[in-house]
């Protein structure tokens, strides 16, 4: 069950899902944008005005080569240069689990963007739970394919954790979609039944608390 209208296009399912939340012509900042596939998609399909930030030279070069505006640098630092509400949307796609200190970054995202999109692999998926329970080893799954000693993913997050984190940090969750898709797979589906257990990824649309 592929629900997104962009289903036939060749980008990852989770990125397509993120793209479906971005309105036509929006201004977008993509943090940890990698080789710019989502930025390029938003630019060409949504006529969005996109800027990406990534720390890796090869990824940055790949963005520029495909015509995506991008800055090489540390997202935690680069985001500070923008004025309040400089963007309609700030996207942190599958990068939260690699952030050392997430709260200041999320606050900056909410400051420079009117809305933000955060997605991450769900650590409470049944396969993760079962692996730890039955084998005693740190879980290695298609979504989290690393060993404990070589993973770039220094934070393990569950859907429930993120909801609680929203209350603690003080931001609103405007939309939550749980999906089932593999890491590099272009198909997927929305998980409505027991998402905490059956979703491989969580996608959140968040915003500042209104006073």
């Amino acid at each position, binding site marked *: 069950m592929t629900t997104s209208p962009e289903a036939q296009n060749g980008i990852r399912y989770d990125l397509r899902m993120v793209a479906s939340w971005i309105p036509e*012509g929006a201004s977008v900042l993509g943090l940890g944008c990698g080789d710019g596939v989502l930025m390029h998609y938003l*630019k*060409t399909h949504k*006529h969005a*005005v996109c*800027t990406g930030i990534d720390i890796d*030279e090869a990824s*940055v*070069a790949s*963005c*520029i*080569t*495909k*015509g995506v*505006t*991008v*800055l*090489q*640098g540390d997202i935690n630092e*680069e985001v500070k*240069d*923008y*004025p309040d509400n*400089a963007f309609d949307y700030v996207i942190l796609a599958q990068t939260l689990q690699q952030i050392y200190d997430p709260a200041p970054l999320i606050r900056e995202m909410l400051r420079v963007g009117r809305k933000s999109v955060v997605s991450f692999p769900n650590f409470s998926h049944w396969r993760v739970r079962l692996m730890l329970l039955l084998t005693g080893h740190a879980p290695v799954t298609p979504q989290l394919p690393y060993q404990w000693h070589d993973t770039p993913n220094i934070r393990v997050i569950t859907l429930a954790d993120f909801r609680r984190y929203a209350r603690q940090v003080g931001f609103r969750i405007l939309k939550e979609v749980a999906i089932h898709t593999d890491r590099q797979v272009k198909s997927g589906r929305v998980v409505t039944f027991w998402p905490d257990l059956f979703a491989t990824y969580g996608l959140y649309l968040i915003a500042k608390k209104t006073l």
Partner: protein
Amino acid sequence: MSEYIQHDQQGASVGLVEKQTFTFAQPPTAMPLACGSPLGPITIAFETCGRLNAARDNAILILHALSGDAHVAGVHAPSDEKPGWWDFMVGPGKGIDTDRYFVICSNILGSCMGSTGPASIDPATGRPYGLTFPVVTIGDMVEAQKALIDHLGIQRLHAVIGGSVGGMQALEWCVRYPTKVESAILLATTTRHSALAIAFNEVARQSIMADPNWNGGDYYGGPKPDMGLAVARMIGHITYLSDASMRLKFGRRLQDKADFSFNFDADFQVESYLRYQGRKFVERFDANAFLYITKAADYFDLERHHGNGSAVAAFAKARARMLVVSFTSDWLYPTYQSRVMVKAMKKNGLDVSFCEIEAQWGHDAFLIPSPRLSGIMKGFLDDDHIP
């Protein structure tokens, strides 16, 4: 910038190009300079490759660095041993694609490669200007380029592109003529020299002025300050390389000998290399032009002249889409200086891309063929998705 001129590996070339000149600012309508003196007539040497389209909107202006010239790509005659200084970057299908763009490169004002400079004849006296030539600035160079662009009937440039001192000119274009520049590529450059960069330039200038043949700049027709200019070039070369590139290129290897000679000949390869570069340079470059151009580079201060000391205020005037590129081993214009301009551009809401390329070649990296550099420049220039 150094000389790494080499033919394209694939053999693609713009082919034959022709050196042209444009003369303007005939007195009494001499061009006013930043220093207050008027200058005229002014001749600017330039070359073009590719074809200007009917809409006249595919022109790219390439700005050369300190010791460069208008001969950016191709050859002047089929028998030429070496092509232009950026032949690997400019040509059909290359980073700056001459199948798409009309490329213009002009020799800077104050130089000695065909444009008016201190070695030119002052029509008022019939003798070379020497030190009576007014001190020119990066802004003056841009004014002369603007006169050339107007002469060619180009209202708006698709891009201005420059490395090092050429990048300074590109930056100046962006803030001086924001409506005439659609995009800019700024390579290994800075909005203002550090004390380190000024210091090296000053040592180079002192070397020229300490040569007895320099004679207060009045040496035309007599022996030239070749030793002073050669040493100045040697100093420059050290700053264009890096510890890593010199270690790889020379190490402590000896030149054509097995042991030290116990005299002051060139024992080490690095000594021999620098002496060779110095000798080669004096054959083609004028010592006074070197003084004037290094001074212009030292005076360049985008923050001071366009932003009251603030980079953010300086870039408030700019409108162009920007690509800023620095190189990891460049210690003359290090990455932090590129980040200063990128930050100021961001704060002004400009469309800016920035990439720091891992390279061991030091400041000269933009003159070394690199698929990465060519790739990003092509991607940036050929971007057809702007709404």
